[in-house]
């Protein structure tokens, strides 16, 4: 599998490290219920199809990426820098 890094171009998946689902947001630790924290820490969807996930380009530009990948086919629909998403969320 190859991932097209927005900075480095198409690279072998060996250059990247997988973290997991990109979308879970940490609840406010002080206010969150135990159920909400359990959900955040342990419970993940396991979709057969499109999945947004975090990859780290450790052997390249050292940037965290959000990769949208089809878990059936490994086809990658999009790759973006995670910090671009963070900047978007803050705006």
């Amino acid at each position, binding site marked *: 599998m190859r991932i097209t890094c927005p*900075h*480095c*171009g198409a*690279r*072998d998946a*060996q*250059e990247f490290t997988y973290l997991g689902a990109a979308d879970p947001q940490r609840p406010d630790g002080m206010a969150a219920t135990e159920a909400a924290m359990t959900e955040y820490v342990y419970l993940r969807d396991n979709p057969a199809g499109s999945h947004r996930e975090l990859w780290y380009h450790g*052997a*390249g*530009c*050292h*940037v965290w990426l959000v990769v949208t990948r089809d878990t059936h086919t490994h086809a990658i629909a999009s790759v973006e*820098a995670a910090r671009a998403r963070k900047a978007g969320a803050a705006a």
Partner: protein
Amino acid sequence: MAEIATSWRPRSAWAGIAQPGSFGAKGKTGVVATLLDGFGLATLIAEPGAATSLSRAVEGRLGIALPEMPRIVSGGAHDAIWAGPDQWLLRAALRDGFQPLLDELAAHAAVSDQSDARAAFRLQGPRTRDLLAKGVMLDLHPSAFGVGETAVTSVAYLGVQLWRLADGPDGPVFEIMVARSMAGSFWSWFTAAAAEFGCRVADQD
């Protein structure tokens, strides 16, 4: 303060690892590795939004702007080499006068002197691409990787940065840089990979 005499001497990153000579297949030399030494090297990392002011400072001082794409830009005795978003390597041909330059640039970026932390060599010769194809997981065909392009990648599980300089009489010219602590492991891969082509190792002029 009085200078304290010690027996400490600068030591090339290749000392005890690689030496001038030839190895591998006899006959025509397929690749030539030139061991680089004595250069100054620093990482420049700009804070978000500060890349433009850093680039202006470098340009004002050295006449070269920092590349926004994975490229190497050379001017006189210095090279600016892209190393990631908002990150660059700055290389000086000689270490003399490098520290004052870094002190100046420190106003614009996180600057870290890496002159003693990397081992580098230049690779050329008619079989250069055949050799690199054995370890580099990138398309280095001239249509895909032009003169002046750089890549941060791995070879034999070791982190490397490489770039392509202007072609020489024997075709493409690449420079490859690895962490100094990995130079021995990298050279082990290199000698095994280059042997079939016939390799000459040379010191820098």
